C-alpha cells in the first residue's frame, strides 16, 4: 500500500493499523481500544449533521482532563509525602523523598488504569460505543484515596468492582449513581477491614502509624499542628493530606468552571456549620473522647482527613452529585454536615467524608426530584390561575 507521507506520523500509524482493528480484522475485538487511541491523538473529524451547524470546541476529553490538571499538585505532593513520612530512611532530601513515593505510587496507578480501562474497553466493545473519558479521572483518584501499600491485587479487585458494579451496570459514565472512585475505597474498607483497620490507614514499608483522625476518634485529641495539616506533612491517604495543594486544585477547577462552586462551597459551609454546632454543644470540661472531639474547633475539621479532598474532587462529580443548581447547595451542605457528624460520633470509623458523599450520592436524585417538582408546581399553578381568571 502506498504511504501518504503528507500526513503526520501518528496519523500514518493509525491509518496503517486501522484495517487490523476494524470489523473482519485480526484484532477487531480490540476495536474500542483502537478507537480510544485514535480519538486521543486526533479529534474526530466528524462534522455536524443535525441541528446546530457550529459547535463549541469544548468536549468531554478536555473537561475530564482539567480535573487531572487540578490534581497534579496533590499528586506530586502526595508522592513526596510518602517518602517524607517514612521512618526508617531518616534523612532524605526532597528528591529522594519524591522518588521513593513515586515508585510506591506508580504500580498502584498502573494497576488501576490497566484494570479499569480494560473493563471500560470491553464494555464499550460490547455496547458498540466509544470508550468514555470518565475513567481518566477515576483511575487517578483511586490510588490517591486508598491507603498506600494496599496490596496490588486488592487495588485491582477494588477497581474492577468499582467500574463494573459502581458504573457499568448502570450504563456507564453519566448513568452511575455512586462515585466510582469512592466505591473502590468503600470496597477495600468494608471487604478487607482486618488488614486495613480504620485507624491505621497509613503504612509504608515497616511503618504503621495512626492518622490524626484516628487519634482524634480514639483519644479525642491529636498533636498534629494545624499548619502541618494545612500544608500536608501528616500521615494519611496520598491525596488527602495537603489542604494547600487541594486548594490549588480547587482554584483550577473553579477558574475553568469545570466543577460546581455551588457544591464545593456548600460542603465547606456544611462542615463548618456542623463543627460549630458541636463546638456549642461540647461540655465545658470534656471527659470522653467524643466530648473532646466535639470541642475541636470547626475550622480544624476542614483541614483534617479527607474533608477538603472530598469536597473539591469527589462531591463535585457532576454525574453523582445533584444536577439542579438548588439541589447542589442542599447536597453539598448535607455532605459537609454528615461528614463531621460521622467523624465525631462513629469512633470505630474515623473518616466520615467517604460515607457522607456516598450517602448523599444516593439521596441527590431525591433532592433533585423535589427541586424539579417545585418547578412543575409553579407551572401548574400558573395554568390553574389562568383557568380561574
Amino acid at each position, binding site marked *: 500500500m502506498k504511504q501518504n507521507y503528507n500526513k503526520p506520523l501518528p496519523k500514518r500509524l493509525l491509518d496503517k493499523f486501522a484495517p487490523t482493528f476494524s470489523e473482519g480484522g485480526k484484532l477487531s475485538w480490540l476495536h474500542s481500544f483502537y478507537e480510544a487511541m485514535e480519538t486521543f491523538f486526533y479529534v474526530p473529524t466528524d462534522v455536524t449533521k443535525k441541528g446546530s451547524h457550529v459547535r463549541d470546541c469544548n468536549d468531554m476529553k478536555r473537561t475530564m482532563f482539567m480535573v487531572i490538571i487540578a490534581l497534579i499538585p496533590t499528586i506530586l505532593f502526595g508522592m513526596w509525602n510518602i517518602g517524607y513520612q517514612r521512618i526508617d530512611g531518616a534523612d532524605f532530601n526532597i528528591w529522594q523523598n519524591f522518588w521513593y513515593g513515586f515508585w510506591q505510587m506508580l504500580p498502584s496507578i498502573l494497576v488501576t488504569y490497566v484494570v479499569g480501562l480494560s473493563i471500560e474497553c470491553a464494555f464499550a466493545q460490547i455496547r458498540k460505543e466509544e470508550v468514555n473519558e470518565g475513567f481518566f479521572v477515576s483511575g487517578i483518584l483511586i490510588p490517591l484515596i486508598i491507603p498506600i501499600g494496599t496490596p496490588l491485587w486488592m487495588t485491582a479487585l477494588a477497581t474492577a468492582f468499582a467500574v463494573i458494579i459502581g458504573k457499568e451496570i448502570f450504563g456507564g459514565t453519566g448513568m452511575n449513581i455512586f462515585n466510582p472512585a469512592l466505591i473502590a475505597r468503600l470496597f477495600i474498607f468494608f471487604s478487607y477491614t482486618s488488614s486495613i483497620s480504620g485507624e491505621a490507614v497509613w503504612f509504608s514499608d515497616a511503618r504503621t502509624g495512626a492518622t490524626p483522625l484516628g487519634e482524634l476518634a480514639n483519644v479525642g485529641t491529636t498533636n498534629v499542628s494545624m499548619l502541618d495539616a494545612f500544608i500536608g506533612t501528616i500521615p494519611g491517604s496520598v491525596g488527602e493530606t495537603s489542604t494547600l495543594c487541594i486548594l490549588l486544585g480547587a482554584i483550577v477547577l473553579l477558574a475553568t468552571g469545570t466543577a460546581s462552586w455551588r457544591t464545593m462551597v456548600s460542603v465547606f459551609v456544611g462542615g463548618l456549620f456542623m463543627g460549630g454546632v458541636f463546638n456549642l454543644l461540647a461540655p465545658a470540661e470534656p471527659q470522653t473522647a467524643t466530648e473532646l472531639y466535639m470541642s475541636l474547633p470547626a475550622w480544624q475539621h476542614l483541614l483534617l482527613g479527607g474533608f477538603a479532598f472530598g469536597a473539591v474532587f469527589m462531591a463535585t462529580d457532576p454525574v453523582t452529585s445533584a444536577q439542579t443548581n438548588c439541589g447542589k447547595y442542599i447536597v453539598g451542605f448535607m455532605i459537609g454536615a454528615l461528614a463531621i457528624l460521622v467523624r465525631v460520633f462513629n469512633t470505630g470509623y474515623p473518616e466520615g467524608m467517604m460515607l457522607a458523599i456516598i450517602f448523599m450520592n444516593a439521596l441527590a436524585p431525591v433532592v433533585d426530584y423535589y427541586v424539579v417538582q417545585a418547578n412543575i408546581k409553579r407551572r401548574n399553578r400558573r*395554568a390553574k390561575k389562568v383557568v380561574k381568571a
Partner: protein
Amino acid sequence: MRVFFVSGENECITSKYQPNLLTYLLILTDMSKVIKLKKGLDIKLVGEAEKSVLALPIGERYSVSPLTFDGVVPKLLVAEGDKVMAGDVLFYDKAHPEVMFTTPVSGTVSAVRRGEKRKLLAIDIAADAQQNYKPFKTNLAKASREEIMATLLESGLWTMILQRPYGIIANSQDTPKAIFVSGFDSAPLAPEMNVALADDMKAVQAGFDALKKLCPTVHLGLKAGEKSILEDVKGVEKHYFAGAHPAGNVGVQIHHIDPINKGEVVWTVAIQNVAIIGRLFLEGKLDMTKTYAVVGSQVAHPQYVKALVGSSIADVIMPARIKPQSGGSSFRIIEGNVLTGRKASANDSLGCYSSQVTVIPEGGELELIGWLAPRFHKFSVSRTYFSWLMPKKKYDLSTGLNGGVRPFVVTGLYEKYLPMDIYPMYLFKAILAGDIEKMENLGIYEIVEEDVALCEFVDPSKQDLQALVRDGINLMIKEM
C-alpha cells in the same frame, strides 16, 4: 420635572437606551417594560452583512418544497407543464385541506421532484418574464375575521402563521390566546430589521392590522436600547427585551410576556412575513418578496438581497459570491443561521420561514491532540479555552463537531443558555424516556427546536438536542 425610571428585576430601562421624554411617556402609557434576560450567548462570527440591499430581478426557476413545513402531508394539485399565476395553489395538506400552499411566481410547472416512495420533494416553476398575479379580494378595514382568514388560507399565507405549542402551521379552528411577533432576530449574523424592512413599513402595519382581526391581542417584542423602525407600529402591545441571543426568539419572549399553559394556543408570525401578509391586503396580490441577509465567513461580499420566497439559493448568493476555496477545503451553505438553519445545496430554494443564508467552512480537519491544544481560533463558552478573554473577537467557525458523542455528564450548563423557567436536562431525559406527562409538566409546550439550539451548541457531550426536541414534539402531537 423628573423622569421616572422603571426598575426592578424584570422591569428596567437599560442605560444604553436614552429615548426622549415623549418616548418615555409613550413607553409608560403603553405599559411597556424592558425584560432583561441574563442567560444566553451571542456567538460573534465574521461575515456580517453590509447594510446595502440589492433587489434581485425575477429569476429563471423557483421551487416550493413541502419539506419546509413540519408535519404536512401534501396532496398535489398541479402537474408538469401546467401554467400557474402567482398565488395559485400547488398542493394542500391532507390532514387540513383548508391549508393551501401556493406558488410565489407565475410561470410553468417545470418539474415535480419526488424522492424515495414517491415522497414529494419540491415543485419547480419556470418563471414568466412578465409576472401575472392572481387577484385577491381584500378590504382590510371592513373585512371580518372569517374573511381575513379565508383570504389568508386561499393565498397560501396562512402557512406563515405558526402555533405554539409545537411550532407547526396554525389550526384555523383554534382561537389563540394571543399572537406574538418578534421584532428582531438575535441569532448569529441575523438580518437587522431596520435594514430589511426599511421600505416596508406600510405593509408591516397592514399586516399587524390583519393579525389583529384574527386575534385582538398582538404582542411585538423589540430590542431594548435600539431605535427600531417597528417602534411606529400601532395597535400592538410592545415589549422590550435586553440580553443576548435567544432574546429575539419568539418562544423566549412568549415565556416572559404570557407563558403558554397546557390547553392554550398562541400563534406566532415572523416579522418579515407580517409584511408579506400586509402586502396581500394592501395590493390584493401575493408578493412574497423578502430581504435575506447573505452572510458568513465564506461569502465574499456579505449583504442584503431582496428576493422572492422560493428563489434558488444560487441566485440569492450570486451577487454576494462565495470566496474561492483553496485545495481540499469546502464550504457549507445553510438556509437560516448557523444554530437552527438547514443544510442546503445551491440548487435548493428558500423557504418562507428563513431570512438569511449563511456560508461557513466545512470542518473535518486533522487536529493532533486538539482537545489539549489552546485552540485560539476556535470559540468556547468554557473557560478551559481562552475565548472568554477576548469577548469582542469574531470567529470563523467551521462545521466540526469538535469531539465525540457522549451521554449527559456535565450539569448546570444548559440552564445558562435557556432563559426560561425550565430544567432543560430533565426535559431532555423525559423526551428520551418518551414520558408524555413528564414532558408536559417540564415545559415541552413552551419550547421548539430553536430555543434549545444554544444548549446544543455548548454541549460538551455533542448530543443533537434540537432533533431530540422535535422528536418529543412529534410524540406529543401523535399522542395528544
